[in-house]
């Protein structure tokens, strides 16, 4: 995670993205928890290296399901999911971090009975024993100073905003190349939301690629490069973040409004 060094997926040699190859590519994915009820109906998206991409959409559109499908938590019935060109479909959920993909769920995203420090140690996984662990820890504490103060505290006793920080920090400790965040602003005050998304930008500067799923369209698009609007299990609109903010159709799909979000 130190600048000046290529980010490496946990224990595999870094796969250099060949020219134009996306960091994350989802193609025509059909997925759902039970066979009869497909939530994703042929959705496609791509995220290029070092991009911040936001997926928006009304409730029930399948945003969370999309992220979970990529993370290996929801069965995929057809389509492909590739991380730097490598298919993720056969990878079990617990091996995703070793491929360089980290996922921060919306809820239940910290180990409440473990201390902040222990949460980070778990995140580091195999790196815990390596020399770089201390550096990673310092880097994370630098990004989230509050956590350094609270390192011995049980994660469950922290405030909502601090818990979110622990959740993201845990993911970062695994040295991911792609980070996925599921509604990171949920339950946070507007101030915290702004701070959080500023942090997301900082994380990108460290060399990561970030996919965010969000309800709070404005705040997320403000820091993103591109966005998708998901509805009824497929991507309906795609574009640059600025364009989406200015687009009245996006406002309509969202809020039933007749005007743009920004």
């Amino acid at each position, binding site marked *: 995670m130190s600048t000046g060094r290529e980010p490496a997926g946990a224990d595999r040699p870094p796969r250099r993205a060949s020219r134009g190859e996306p960091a994350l590519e989802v193609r025509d994915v059909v997925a759902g928890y039970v066979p009869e009820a497909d939530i994703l109906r042929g959705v496609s998206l791509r995220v290029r290296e070092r991009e911040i991409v936001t997926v928006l959409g009304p409730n029930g559109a399948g945003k969370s399901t999309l992220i979970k499908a990529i993370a290996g*938590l929801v069965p995929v019935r057809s389509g492909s999911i590739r991380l730097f060109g490598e298919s993720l479909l056969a990878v079990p959920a617990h091996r995703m971090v070793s491929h360089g993909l980290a996922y921060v769920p919306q809820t239940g995203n910290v*180990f*409440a009975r*473990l201390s902040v420090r222990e949460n980070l140690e778990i995140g580091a996984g195999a790196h815990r024993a390596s020399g770089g662990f201390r550096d990673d820890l310092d880097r994370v504490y630098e990004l989230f100073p509050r956590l350094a103060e609270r390192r011995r505290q049980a994660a469950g006793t922290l405030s909502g905003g601090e818990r979110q920080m622990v959740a993201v920090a845990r993911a970062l400790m695994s040295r991911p190349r792609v980070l996925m965040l599921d509604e990171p602003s949920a339950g946070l005050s507007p101030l915290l939301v702004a701070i959080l998304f500023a942090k997301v930008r900082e994380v990108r500067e460290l060399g990561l690629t970030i996919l965010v799923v969000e309800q709070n369209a404005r705040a997320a698009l403000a820091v993103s490069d591109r966005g998708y609007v998901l509805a009824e299990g497929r991507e309906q609109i795609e574009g640059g973040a600025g364009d989406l903010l200015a687009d009245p159709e996006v406002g309509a799909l969202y809020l039933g409004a007749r005007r743009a979000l920004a």
Partner: protein
Amino acid sequence: MMQYVANGVVLGATLALGAIGLTLTYNILRFANFAHGEFLTFGAYFTLVFAAFFAGAAPIGPLTFGWGFLLAAVIGLVLSALLALVLDRLLFRRLRRSDVTVTLVIASFGASLMLRNVVVFVWSPRPEYFSRTIAVSREIVPGVRMTGDELFVVALTAALMLALHLFLTRSSLGRSMRAVSDDPSLARVAGIDVQAMIRWTWFIGAGLAAVAGILFGLTVQISPEMGFNLILPMFAATILGGIGSIYGAVVGGLIIGLAQELSVPLIGAAYKPAVAFTLMFLILLVYPQGILGDRS
């Protein structure tokens, strides 16, 4: 009076070891495993078999057993732990996978009954003992007589608990196990192989139970019903201490052990298991989360 306390500590130590395993499996697998008692029983019986092989070693100091027995005990506990893994693989894992709500609890009850009868079938229903050597009790402090073996039980239990504490707090495996017990789905997302953690839980939980069985067999007796007779006090210990809390299991074990022994002058030895049940019932009535349990 102090003698009863001493007896209670010895019994409590044994119960604590067994209760730890029970609470570990409950934590990670989310069901009350009635077959747990059989890990105690099989620990003792496997050791009995191997102790016969290594018989002939001289007893160590004031103890009734020698190095041969210790070696047999290690083998016995490993075999008992393997039994737990086999049971999980053949039975519990399949029931977890299919969406049947019927239930690990009933299956574990059935497995317990079967395993007890396997012991009767392979060995016999008669009680057995590890050695014919009479254990000599000495006065440790005024009014308290204990045998060397009983002191060994207390010392070994204390050492094992310390080792377990260090393991859970300092080692990566221990930390991963605690993570799985805290939130299994997050653990998976965080890169922990939950299936492997489940296997380790079985191994450690059953291993500790096996030690408890061996120690019980050493200081009391070995019989096919021994584990089953202790399952109720062990459950009482976990509930008293707060189901899911390992330190609670230890505290609970000691309390139940003391209560059972201290009740003997009052209501006689026959009703000891009833004491455990009564305590458990009361705690469920009044403070169900237990002493060190979750407040949630």
